[in-house]
């Protein structure tokens, strides 16, 4: 059996153990749905301006948190050690864990999006750009959650570390205010945030409008972020997973 098949086994087990729990699914859907509804109730004409940002923000918080919670939980229970004793490479474990977290983020985002389309009449004008943002964002954020989780022992430590970059980038990544409306000196900073590109891919997917001329530039930027996260996850895992 190939390492890829073993990664699929790890993913499937994690989905069964962690991601199929009704309270988790409910929370993952309710949190963004309530936020979007609040914006919609205030002004139905402009809710679409922030909806892509809220979906991206949910993806960021959901995926980084879930990956971190699963890994720190398994470190505490000793089951990560069990996985490390099995004939799987560190890369296989990273792939399996990140894929299940990403699949959860993609599935909940799709359900949320479907709800918005059916209930509020939101339209997806460029599905490919939207899908690109969803897949690349979910995978990158899951890997970031994994990297942080192997560096710490407790869930609260992982959350503290994650929040050090999650909250600041919310304000510079076009979630609540489009990048073009940000002060000129912040815009270069926005370009180093992966969230900016996910928001812009979603924005392009929903309205066909974006700070960038098309979906390809943010798409390429996200591929670069994904590759960097994948490369960083290996050494981080090797150094820290057995502690």
């Amino acid at each position, binding site marked *: 059996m190939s390492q890829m098949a073993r990664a699929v086994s790890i993913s499937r087990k994690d989905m069964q153990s962690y991601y199929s729990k009704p309270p988790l699914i409910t929370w993952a859907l309710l949190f963004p749905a309530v936020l979007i509804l609040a914006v919609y109730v205030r002004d139905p004409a402009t809710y679409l301006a922030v909806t892509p940002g809220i979906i991206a923000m949910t993806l960021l918080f959901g995926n980084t948190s879930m990956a971190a919670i699963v890994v720190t939980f398994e470190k505490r229970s000793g089951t990560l*050690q069990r996985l490390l004793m099995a004939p799987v490479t560190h890369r296989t474990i990273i792939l399996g864990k990140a894929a299940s977290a990403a699949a959860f983020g993609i599935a909940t985002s799709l359900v949320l999006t479907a709800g918005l389309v059916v209930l509020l009449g939101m339209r997806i004008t460029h599905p490919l750009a939207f899908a690109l943002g969803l897949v690349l964002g979910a995978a990158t954020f899951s890997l970031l959650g994994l990297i942080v989780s192997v560096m710490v022992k407790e869930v609260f430590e992982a959350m503290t570390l994650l929040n050090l970059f999650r909250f600041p980038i919310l304000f510079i990544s076009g979630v609540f205010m489009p990048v073009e409306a940000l002060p000129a000196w912040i815009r270069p900073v926005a370009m180093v945030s992966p969230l900016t590109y996910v928001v812009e891919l979603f924005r392009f997917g929903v309205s066909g409008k974006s700070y960038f001329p098309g979906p390809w530039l943010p798409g390429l930027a996200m591929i670069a972020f994904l590759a960097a996260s994948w490369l960083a996850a290996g050494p981080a895992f090797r150094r820290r997973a057995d502690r």
Partner: protein
Amino acid sequence: MAEHETSAVITASQLTKRYGELTALDRVTFSVRRGEVFAYLGPNGAGKTTTINILCGLLRRDGGEAAICGFDIERDPVAVKQRIGVVPEESNLYPELTGRRNLEYLGELYGLSRAARRSRADELLETFGLTDRAGASFRSLSRGLKRRLTVAAALIHSPEVILLDEPTAGLDVPSARSLREVIRSIHRDGATVFLTTHNLAEAEALSDRVLILVRGKVVAEGTAAEIRRQVERARTVSVVFSGAVAEGALRDACPAVRTATHADGAWRLEASDTHAALAQIVRFAEGQGVRVVEISSAGATLEEAFMAILQDSSRGQESDT
């Protein structure tokens, strides 16, 4: 026995591991032959778990070599892990999964086909008396049943080598006895067993060979009988002569006797070398024209030998410092 059957399956050469200033393993060298039960003993902090963690790829060594079935653990970790089953000190299966799902999931990770892992899981559940609790979550099982399931999980892929870290620690007597029977059965089936335990009677009953580790260093290695003999050389001998003998004459004739005390008609002699002392005593009796009415020297248990070796090791360390 064919040559390949007696060849070394686990080899450690000059294995060294440091945690900051502490040297947990100091140039440890040993080899475990195919099909034997090898007991790896030592007090707390001796480096037993560190060794197991290096052998199963959880820890990186700082020096030396370690290989299992001919594969270096750091250069070919997947090949090694495919051939070993590990029972860690803590039973660490997935708490939320049932016993059967735990076994089947681990079977997947070891590359067993769906049919193979199902039938192997059934077989192991039956062997370990867990069939009735196969549908219960791991977290709901008693400590003894968790331990049994953890051993079963280590066997899901029928490994050539089993590493057992304190397998019976914390178990009640019936559970520990049952687990020891399981270890014997694993051994009978041809697997090589590497066992760490604090229970020296268990080590003596189960193992073919024993290694004693103290503060990361190997201080004794051999069969349990060989290790006992190492300390039997310095033991007390009790002897009753048919007539009176003088202490001075006895000491002069028996240089292997370090001290001699007479009480209740018997001499208690502390010997530096029991075998030499026995021969000298018999010769002394002949020379004195008395008979040896009774002579005894109780054999040391492995536990006594272990304690004597620990004391020697501590004295050695003190004199070094």
